[in-house]
């Protein structure tokens, strides 16, 4: 599926300036509630087992 250039460009910029991983975040402000400020090293979503 062809993506608009603006969407692709924004992803590229986002990737460049944000060294995020879905489970280890440095740039996305974490929630402070639930005692869960540290995201898991990876997700059992896929890594179950």
């Amino acid at each position, binding site marked *: 599926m062809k*993506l608009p250039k603006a*969407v*692709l460009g924004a992803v590229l910029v986002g*990737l460049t300036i944000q060294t*995020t991983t879905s*489970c280890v975040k440095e740039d*996305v402000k974490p*929630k402070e509630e639930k005692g869960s400020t540290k995201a898991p090293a990876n997700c059992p979503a896929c*890594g179950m*087992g």
Partner: protein
Amino acid sequence: MEAAPPLYASVACNLDADLLAAAYPLLEEGRVEALEWSFDALYWAEQVPEWFTNLLHTYAGAGRLVGHGVFFSLLSGKWSPEQQQWLAHLGQLAEQFRFDHITEHFGFFTGQNFHHGAPLPIPYTATALRIGQDRLRRIYDACCCPVGLENLAFAYTLDEVKRHGNFLEELLLPVNGFVILDLHNLYCQLHNFGVPYDELIALYPLERVREIHISGGSWHDSEQAPSQRIRRDTHDDAVPEEVFQLLELTMPRCPNLKFVVLEQLGHALHAEASRTQFREDFGRMESLVARHRAALRTLPTNDFRPQQTWPPSTAAEDEHLHRQQRQLSDILENAPSYAEAQRLLQASGLAHSDWRIEQWEPHMLETALHIARKWKT
């Protein structure tokens, strides 16, 4: 000319720099035909970057975004406030994004914390069926789109492996739901239980398969079965040749298939070589999907929408099942050894029950101990 039936070569894509960097060239070339998003894996984040949201909206607008839940714990004996919150969050997201469907995993989560634990199977009983069907209805009511369940990689016995497909179908029937057939999960079971593909695949309701997952995994030694290695669904390596073969064999058997998804965890995509391998795996999957699509002559016959509505009701629970799950989680997470885990299980409320712990394969109990501890913290 009649339009070809929709069948999309897709990527499981989360807010993960390594995963997105690996997938970016594919996105840029317009080759990713649909996205699967684990919408509940961002529970720790207050704000999701706009650029990621825009990417999701682009696919959603084309009817090519699917949501894959992780943490709902479909078959927990007890209904929790976190599950209620999960549904409310899903409802909000479903208003924000037009999901083509929503999926979750079979099983219950070990662990006391909602976001720490691993999904493990429970006995296929009338209680499990009642709870699972009730929860699937609640998921449908929240998202108002087709709802599906993924087959689990893990099982304690061959009997459980053989009955899994049928039980999935029983769970799904009231919501007219569908199956995500994870072929690497199936591969784990083919290997760990020595069952032939033709025999096992015939036991799945393949007309209910709307999505297929492929991924890689890893081999683990077993003290309980020193002569064999255990295959685990760790999603941290390239897709094995055998799984591509399973894909080729299985697609023609699934008349309602719409999405074929490549999954890999971002932490395994840090090196450029692994990213290149990821793209090669996608390319191979894409070719197989294209070849199958070219041979398709019929449109899907099931829209996977329920044919009824349900009045509001109290969430189904079972206190006895809940106590058993708590006991099992505690043993799996804290027993100091395999032998002690065996002793504790035999002294627990799971002994001589529907759990049939007396028949559990030793190498799979050993694997359950490893899995529960891996996700405990």
